[in-house]
């Protein structure tokens, strides 16, 4: 048995050592190519854009397909993509898009028929609604006429220019009989984006090649690889080693861990997310019947405002988010979206002021008891609130600690409730079993969706079907403004209305924005030579709403110019050889001594 092991071990070591040389040789043919390898801690759920819902999937789709419009890489305003230009009828119900004369990656011309087929598919096939159903909810009809695409809507929709549905080639996809079961694993995949997907190994990687016929021109990079990691630590190890060139969406602790590496650039810019507290304003269902067990004191806007004054947002940004966030002086739209961002100024601005918070509560009749905790004006109930957070999120634990301290200063007791994510979304979005909860939202260039999460209609139905509310808010002023912005096709005027909506959320405080977490990414500066974020000024590389950063990116070619890659390879080969040799010699020595001993045994 012993001999067996020894032989096996020897063979294994020999094979692996040999493998080093072989592997290095095998990598050679790729030399001279410009390859970008993006690490993602999520794998693709589906290559079928009608079904895929994960963030990584939409990131890859943005490279494979084009859309009607795309956020302008510089300003984030809607700009032409497959639609060269567009007009709107005076009543705002009919949109006519002129489709660009360009080619699919298989050489077929792109026509309005393709776009019409795509939208009609989503409108008529239930399975095709999986990914982007709500985007066509308001569509009455979609027809094609040569290169003209005509979309008629049921009601005016100003956000039409941020349609998230990729335009698919009709001649390829109309052959698919059952969209729900179609995996779309035919390569190269036909698209009209900057890259063409040429290979996919499920849960491992997706490989894309530059599309020479892309309408903006061929990308500088020859090949784009999305490589999937199951856990962030392993992805960071991969970045440090140089197995991948870029990771996006990092957490502050992970971001700190790549600090000081001479080959890695830390990308720290403003993010697209707002973190806020949901303060239960008296949860109701869509028929205005109370639901849940929210604390009655929180129905009073004065209490909510007092809580707002008691929060030291700067401290939270500095200490909870390690300084990698901007304290929020606005509402749910982060300053990344310059155009729509609203910031409180003057008297309206709520700054950290414990005395003022105490005064508001004193004046409103919430008297402090002997134990320092305030009670309701009728003296029946103490101001003891629950704070709902998610399990296994150290950052939220820390936040809860700070908030408990802040609120204690104003005679309010906060106890933390930890819930797993499904229970959390049920209690804070459907059953209303919460007082204050942590939440956040990644905002798109058109903020309509995040604003809609505070509409009356988003509250749960009487039968307990959640509608996706982020606050149980139902306010006539806010509703009216929302309807106005839907119809307002003059962008400047619409921006003003949307700012008013943020102001309303800020002053009425059903949600209290605490900070805007930064966009944290890391990339190999010894490989990537040119970065163009979107928006151009302090924007995002990965995980934004545009595929442009990977289109505009440039890297050093593999082999030749990149010293790190090729030299590292031969070095490791050499070292592996030496290590292997030592192990082999060690094994042989071990075997010989064992052999002698067993011979001695047998002689006994």
């Amino acid at each position: 048995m012993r001999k067996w092991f020894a032989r096996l071990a020897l063979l294994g070591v020999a094979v692996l050592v040999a493998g080093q040389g072989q592997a290095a040789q095998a990598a050679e043919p790729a030399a001279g190519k410009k390859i970008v390898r993006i690490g993602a801690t999520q794998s693709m759920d589906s290559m079928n854009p009608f079904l895929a819902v994960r963030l990584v999937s939409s990131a890859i789709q943005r490279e494979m397909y084009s859309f009607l419009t795309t956020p302008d890489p510089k300003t984030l305003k809607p700009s032409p993509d497959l639609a060269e230009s567009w007009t709107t009828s005076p009543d705002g119900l009919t949109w006519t898009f002129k489709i660009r004369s360009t080619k699919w990656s298989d050489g077929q011309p792109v026509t309005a028929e393709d776009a019409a087929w795509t939208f009609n598919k989503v409108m008529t096939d239930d399975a095709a609604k999986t990914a982007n159903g709500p985007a066509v909810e308001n569509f009455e009809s979609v027809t094609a006429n040569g290169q003209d695409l005509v979309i008629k809507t049921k009601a005016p929709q100003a956000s039409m220019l941020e349609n998230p549905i990729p335009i698919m080639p009709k001649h390829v996809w109309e052959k698919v009989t059952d969209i729900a079961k179609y995996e779309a694993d035919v390569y190269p995949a036909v698209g009209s984006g900057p890259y063409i997907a040429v290979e996919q190994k499920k849960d491992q990687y997706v490989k894309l090649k530059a599309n020479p016929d892309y309408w903006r021109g061929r990308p500088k990079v020859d090949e784009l690889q999305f490589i999937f990691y199951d856990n962030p630590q392993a992805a960071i190890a991969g970045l440090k080693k140089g197995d991948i060139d870029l990771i996006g969406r990092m957490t502050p602790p992970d971001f700190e861990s790549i600090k000081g590496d001479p080959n890695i650039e830390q990308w720290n810019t403003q993010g697209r997310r707002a973190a806020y507290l949901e303060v239960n304003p008296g949860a109701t269902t869509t028929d205005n019947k109370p639901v849940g067990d929210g604390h009655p004191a929180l129905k009073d806007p004065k209490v909510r405002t007092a809580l707002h004054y008691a929060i030291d947002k700067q401290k939270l940004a500095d200490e909870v988010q390690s300084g990698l966030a901007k304290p929020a002086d606005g509402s749910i739209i982060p300053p990344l979206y310059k155009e729509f961002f609203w910031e409180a100024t003057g008297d309206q601005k709520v700054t950290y002021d414990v005395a003022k918070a105490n005064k508001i509560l004193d004046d409103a009749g919430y008297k402090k008891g002997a134990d320092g905790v305030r009670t309701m004006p009728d003296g029946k109930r103490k101001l003891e609130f629950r704070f709902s957070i998610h399990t296994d999120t150290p950052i939220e634990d820390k936040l809860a600690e700070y908030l408990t301290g802040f609120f204690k200063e104003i005679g309010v007791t906060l106890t933390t409730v930890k819930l797993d994510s499904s229970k959390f979304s049920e209690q804070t979005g459907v059953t209303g079993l919460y007082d204050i909860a942590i939440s956040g939202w990644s905002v798109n260039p058109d903020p309509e969706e995040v604003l809609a999460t505070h509409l009356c209609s988003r509250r749960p139905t009487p039968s307990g079907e959640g509608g996706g509310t982020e606050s149980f808010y139902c306010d006539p002023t806010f509703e009216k403004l929302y309807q106005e912005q839907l119809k307002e096709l003059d962008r400047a005027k619409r921006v003003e209305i949307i700012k008013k909506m943020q102001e309303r959320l800020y002053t009425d405080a059903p949600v209290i924005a605490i900070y805007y977490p930064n966009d944290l990414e890391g990339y190999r500066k010894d490989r990537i030579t040119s970065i163009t974020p979107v928006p151009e000024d302090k924007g995002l590389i990965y995980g934004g709403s545009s595929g442009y950063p990977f289109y505009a990116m440039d890297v050093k070619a593999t082999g030749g110019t990149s010293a790190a890659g090729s030299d590292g390879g031969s070095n490791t080969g050499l070292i592996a050889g030496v290590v292997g040799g030592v192990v082999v010699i060690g094994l042989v020595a071990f075997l010989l001594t064992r052999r002698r001993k067993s011979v001695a045994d047998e002689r006994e």
Partner: protein
Amino acid sequence: MTTPLEAAEPAVQAAGSGDDRPAYRGTLKYALSKVGGALFSIAMVIVGTFFVFRLLPGDPVRNLAQGRNMTPTQLALERHRLGLDKSLIDQFFDFVGKTLHFDLGTSYEYNRPVLSLIGERFPATLLLAGGGLVIAVGLGIWQGQRAGWQRGSRFDQVSTGVSLVLWSMPTFWLGLLLLMVFGVGIGPIPGIFPTRGIESVDAPDGFAYVLDVGMHMVLPCLTLVAVVYAQYLLVMRSSLLEEVSQDYVNVARAKGLRDDQVRRRHAVPNALLPTVTLVFMRIGFVVGGAVTVETIYSWPGLGQLFYEAVRVPDFTLMQGTFMLITVAVILMNTLADVVYHIIDPRVRSA
């Protein structure tokens, strides 16, 4: 030609040595009763699986929406598509009916048949967990019998000590440590092993591909073996210790057999029995993969699939993978019982 002879033989034997035929029959009867028990267990698993997973908190439809807005109509549509709008009892009978036809349903999240998802992941898991099992069992048995035979020797102290230290290490921690040291490289130690997956993105063909997969397997396999081989070592060691003082060992020694021969030919075969049971039980678990190790090294296997399914919760996928794992464990247990019966005559008479 041979038939009459064979037919005649039992008669002769029955007359000669009376206990041989009943013993053979006994094995068959025993095996059948075990298989019957296993089938009953599997039936219970099918029932249990369905209801236990329904107790998990969370609404798959909401979670699958991943924060996207869905209108109530759409949610209802989605519910209908997943068959979640039916009553629990109807869902249960649907599930049992399909399962009996080897249809494990369609995954909510992947939108594809569970069986084909499992089929896709199975080879990777078999390679990693199977390979790990073979190495761990080999290493454990080899060190265990050596350590047991020379109890208290330096070899015993070192091998038992090292294996126990590794056994008590958290898999996740050890895996990350190995990844940092041998994947990324620290100081003079070069990171020669890949940081993820089962193969390189630009994997070569032919023999070089086998080597590529081999390189990718080293760290996950090492982690897997390091944390489990102690159990084989300890079981082997303690069962050998029991044999050391047995009379037959003394007899073998008295016959003048060399120490090595006594160990290999007499003590070890007898001491192997508990290990065999353990190994068979573990073969069942191979199917479940090694969730933690697969997650650290992004190994595209079944463990990872199950982990993801729990997060949604993707009922059909969970049911499918869970049933596969439990059925494999039950079958292997049954097989262990039967094999035990065959290789150890003492069980037969007992």
